[in-house]
């Protein structure tokens, strides 16, 4: 970083650590194709575990539940968090500071504590745990992350632009929609990504608040099965996520290339 020289040491180090991060996927994916039900002896190539996984009603339901909750929780928490960020940016400093401090609380709070807190809430008010409670819990823990991601961007915008727009005749709502929102689009999308990951991946909070509903994590934790069909499930999720990640990466580099090209054109 100090000098632009890329030493061989830094390269090897980076590759080693990346290897560490990706090594568990190798046996995970390998054994999903195992002919026998062993997780340690590879006896031959077979797709039987994928077939078993696809035929399993419980896994299918768990996958649907996970996506269903994650998508709705992401949309709602991003919306609520974004408009809250906008509101915060225009409020008094004291209120802002207090709210932001309170917002940090669920983020640092250990997940197990959040989980049982929600459980106590639902039980005390006689609300049966199920889809609704799980959704509420997910919205509750995603929204603070949205604010942490979106608010700094909102704060960094030039407030004068909005004032200027209104001086020129725009209503407050027009100002927000046409001026502010496009500028924070990047942060909002990032917030959506974070919210989705948090919801998709969640275990302990869902475990206590979802009642009988199972998401992928709960299914994994409660299943008696210890055979390669779990590897098959993992592999499919991994492939799916990799494709999304690669797509985003290519899209980003595409955009950056376009920017460079346009930059040259302007010259």
């Amino acid at each position: 970083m100090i000098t632009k020289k890329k030493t061989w040491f830094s390269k090897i180090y980076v590759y080693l650590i990346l290897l560490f991060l990706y090594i568990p996927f190798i046996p995970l994916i390998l054994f999903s194709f195992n002919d026998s039900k062993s997780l340690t002896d590879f006896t031959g190539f077979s797709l039987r575990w994928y077939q078993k996984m696809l035929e399993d009603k419980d896994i299918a339901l768990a996958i649907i539940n996970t996506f269903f909750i994650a998508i709705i929780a992401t949309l709602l928490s991003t919306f609520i968090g974004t408009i809250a960020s906008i509101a915060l940016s225009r409020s008094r400093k004291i209120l802002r500071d207090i709210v932001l401090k309170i917002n940090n609380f669920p983020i640092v709070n250990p997940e197990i504590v959040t989980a049982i807190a929600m459980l106590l809430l639902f039980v005390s008010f006689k609300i049966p745990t199920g889809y609704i409670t799980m959704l509420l819990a997910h919205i509750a823990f995603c929204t603070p992350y949205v604010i942490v991601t979106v608010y700094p961007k909102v704060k960094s915008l030039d407030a004068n632009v909005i004032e200027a727009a209104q001086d020129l005749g725009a209503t407050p709502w027009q100002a927000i929609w046409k001026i502010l929102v496009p500028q924070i689009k990047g942060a909002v999308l990032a917030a959506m990504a974070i919210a989705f990951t948090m919801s998709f991946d969640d275990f302990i909070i869902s475990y206590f608040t979802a009642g009988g509903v199972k998401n992928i994590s709960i299914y994994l934790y409660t299943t008696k099965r210890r055979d390669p069909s779990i590897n098959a499930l993992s592999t499919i999720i991994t492939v799916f996520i990799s494709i999304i990640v690669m797509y985003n990466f290519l899209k980003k580099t595409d955009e950056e290339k376009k920017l460079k090209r346009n930059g040259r054109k302007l010259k």
Partner: protein
Amino acid sequence: MKGLKKVLVFTALVSLAVPTVSSCGVAKVVKCIGKEKLDVFNWGSYIDPAVIEAFEVENDVCVNYSTFDSNETAVEKLKKNEVYDVIFPSEYAIEQLISEDLIAQIDWSKITSVSNNLDEEANGDNHLVSGLKGMINSLKNADSSVNFLNYTVPYFWGTVGIVYDTTVVSLSQIEEKQWDILKDNSYTLGYYNSSKDGFMIPLKELGYSVNTTNSSEVDEAKEWLIDQKRTLGSKLSYVGDDVIEDMASENNRYDMAVVYSGDATYMMQENEKLSYYKPTIGTNVWFDGMVIHKEAKNVDLAYKFINFMMEDENAEANSLYVGYSSVKANIYDNLLNGDFIDQTASYEVIFDKEKDEMFRYNPTSKKLIDDAWADVKLA
């Protein structure tokens, strides 16, 4: 680049579509929209899926199958107002559900595939196994208000014992030491991560009741467990149901494990090196039964389901699939002398009135044991 992006998007959609539109998985879920539903709450892997499907097809209904991994979890959820039509708790949990007024009495006039005749000498059609009748009677004789059949139709029964690798441990060693063999640090052990099951063993070894409310007895048992933990060190693993597959493979992970007899039957079928021993010093003998929730939404369908499960054909299929011992006398005898003849040690259920015990619903005992178990885990 654009072409590559298109390929990626397409592959992403396909890999999401695959599990989504899979042959049976989601299709099954979608098919259920609009049909009558039955909510069943059961142990995992406790009914042959083919039997459930047959029930669904025969009655054109959908079975929502939810699972629990312990009686305590199940009762917690029911107390939290989760409602199911048919539930499969163990006998002591049934006692608790009765006291919490969560389940309805069984109308035996509606039960056609099993008889509630508790005469141990009688052995007509659809009768329960004589041994199970004996168990239920022993409770009834002690306290006439307790007749389990008022509230449940039994489903499976069994014992708790030691499944062991015959190439490593010998039967004579276990017979000699009884439960104390589990403190022998020459062997690796899988021990249930459950306060009730965990304490049952030392209490039985020390000659106390598994339902004791005597705190000094519980303390003695606690010392046994802590001693076991210290002696075995890393040879001791506290396990859940993962122990089933861990023992059922040729490279069984542990030399010995404390398991339920039905699981032992399954393990022994998969791994010929294993055998099962029910300690004569005393153990837990239990039964699971079907109960109907007081607020069940579909009572008629619930009765149909219970009857269906207890029909000879289905009771046999379930017993074969899961490995647990059937409560129907004819099925039990057939399988004991037939399909499960090599697994007699675990399939056969013997209730020694003097030494063996059923768990009872006893909150005082439970609290003592739960707290002591936490101390054992922290030690």
